[in-house]
């Protein structure tokens, strides 16, 4: 009996340890986030020239419209969102206290530190690159579009008009350029340097130094520093971000919640086995007792 008791404790300890591995997974990524690259979008400096849109479309062969057509500011009249043929768009937001003050805001994939889309992808077609980008592999994708539902920023778009080889389309963070040590196409074209590319931790320092150097000019909150566990792309705004199109999100990363349940239960198939072992053990001990009783009788 004493041997059985020791075995039982051992098995429960093992099974609880495997259940916890789900949460340690998240911590592994977190420890890397200071080394990843990011982009700081300073909407106070942005002049809304839309050159980033042009550069992005050129880089990814999305549109062959000439540079001149991007001078058209009338597009700001309507609120646009990134779609399958535009990975980034520039919108306008206004100061609620003074509606004459307009600021421009570039929108694209935020490349979260702990991306919900990666977590939601059931085939691993989306992956967080160690350089910071959330990469998409069209060959693995089965087109379930769970990523679209999972993304808190509503970024991934789907090629609905392409019936044969539809893909998920979103900002790639120009990961090939970044791997070569270059900055993304939008960043390198930005005339006013409203976009700054660099190691994420340095960008956070930069953001706080701008608050310090320009008192009153910014709403002193680096959007993306902590939102959903931090994002590679971060924003500085003139007004509270709730007046912009950036969604109000808590600092808690989204994946762990579902992952602890989903991944934990099925991690390496140990928990199910452990459960069956436990049940077996219970049956075994009960069976033993019955046998003993039978023997006694």
């Amino acid at each position, binding site marked *: 009996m004493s041997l059985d008791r020791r075995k039982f404790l051992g098995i429960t300890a093992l099974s609880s340890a495997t259940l916890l591995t789900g949460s340690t997974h998240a911590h592994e990524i977190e420890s890397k986030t200071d080394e990843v690259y990011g982009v700081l979008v300073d909407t106070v*400096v942005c002049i809304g020239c839309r050159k980033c849109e042009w550069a992005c479309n050129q880089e990814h062969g999305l549109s062959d419209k000439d540079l001149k057509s991007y001078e058209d*500011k009338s597009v700001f009249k309507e609120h646009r969102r990134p779609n399958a043929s535009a990975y980034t768009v520039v919108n306008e937001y206004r100061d609620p206290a003074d509606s004459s003050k307009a600021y421009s805001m570039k929108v694209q994939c935020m490349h979260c530190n702990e991306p919900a889309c990666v977590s939601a992808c059931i085939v691993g077609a989306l992956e967080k690159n160690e350089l910071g980008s959330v990469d998409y592999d069209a060959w693995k994708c089965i087109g379930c579009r769970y990523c679209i539902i999972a993304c808190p920023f509503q970024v991934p778009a789907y090629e609905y008009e392409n019936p044969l080889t539809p893909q998920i389309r979103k900002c790639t963070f120009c990961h090939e350029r970044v791997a070569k040590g270059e900055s993304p196409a939008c960043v390198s074209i930005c005339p006013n340097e409203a976009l700054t590319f660099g190691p994420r931790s340095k960008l956070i320092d930069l953001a706080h130094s701008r608050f310090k150097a320009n008192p009153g000019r910014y709403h002193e909150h680096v959007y993306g520093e902590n939102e959903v566990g931090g994002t590679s792309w971060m924003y500085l705004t003139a007004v509270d971000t709730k007046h912009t199109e950036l969604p109000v999100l808590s600092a808690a990363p989204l994946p762990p919640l579902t992952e602890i349940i989903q991944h934990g239960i099925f991690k390496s198939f140990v928990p199910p086995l452990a459960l069956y072992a436990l049940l077996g053990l219970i049956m075994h001990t009960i069976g033993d007792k019955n046998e003993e009783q039978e023997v006694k009788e």
Partner: protein
Amino acid sequence: MTYKKLSLLFIAVVMIAISGSVFGVAQNTHNSELDKINCLECHTCPTPNAQDMCLKACPSVLQPEMKAAHTLVEAPDTFLIDELTDLYQPVTFNHKLHADMAQMGGDCGTCHHFSPPGHIPPCSDCHGGEKNPSNLRQPSLKGAYHRQCLSCHREWSHETQCILCHLPTEGKPLSVGFDSTDILGISHPVVTVPDKLVYRTPYESGPVVTLHHNEHIDLFGLRCVDCHKQENCSYCHDMDKETKITKTDEEIHAVCNDCHLEERCDKCHDTVEKPAFSHASTGWALNRYHKGAECRACHPTGKKISKLNRRCSACHSGWNSDNFDHAVTGLRLDEIHIELDCEDCHTDLAYNKAPDCASCHDEGTNPKETPPGEYLRR
């Protein structure tokens, strides 16, 4: 003893290492980190040495922001910014105009945030063509230029279009719908142009000078800069009115005298406000066809308007019986008369008068009584 010596040696080695990394000049002590740095980022000469470090004058820990006073004569009036020419043509920068503006505020230091005495370094001395990854706070040259311009342009004119400064490289220059050499062409909020200005002058026998401003522009086809020659931004945007320079009598009259050469005082000065110009005062009231025409259409010389030959053919030399629609005069000619040459009826080429029918109709016909066609209005 040996312990002390060793520690002294150690301190010396550390000092050398620190000085080497601070100045980055001692070639022998270059470590692998320094090898990655382009010498020309900090030095003006390719081979700096301990004697001649040729360090660029850039803001640093040793030399923080510095703004010395400079006189405007040191700088050219305009220059071409072409270091980064890529998507657009180089920018012609009117330095004088901007310097004038800066004098209302922070002087040269408004833009030249680091200007040590004796020399204003060009932006490219400190701001590199590529963003410096080790100092993300410092904008690259492109960022430095654009931020310098746009921070004010956005605030003052709310215009951030690229084509306000740049012309596109391909094809013809973009038509941006204005003449950038004139005041109204400069990116600027709407300028209210006064219709009439009345000046009270100390001239006793004619204290009132009336300027029908818009009429002057229309009459003579003037551009703002034709009269407003030496005016800079501070003329309107002077924040300190106390120090506004008062003009001498000569300077005040110079604006008018450029055109009104040797004119009598009463041309402008009067005891009452002068009425606006009426063409009827010349003895030739404009008819309905001429009323809408711009003065320049008939008086093309611009500044000096002289009397014109009143004969229609003096201007409308191309008119003949084939291409002139006589109905516009109010008389549609009948089949017989429309075949005639103009001069057949208007014998003396005086088209403003009714013709003398007697040249053909010897019985003395009056065109009013027996018309040569149909009168469209009476």
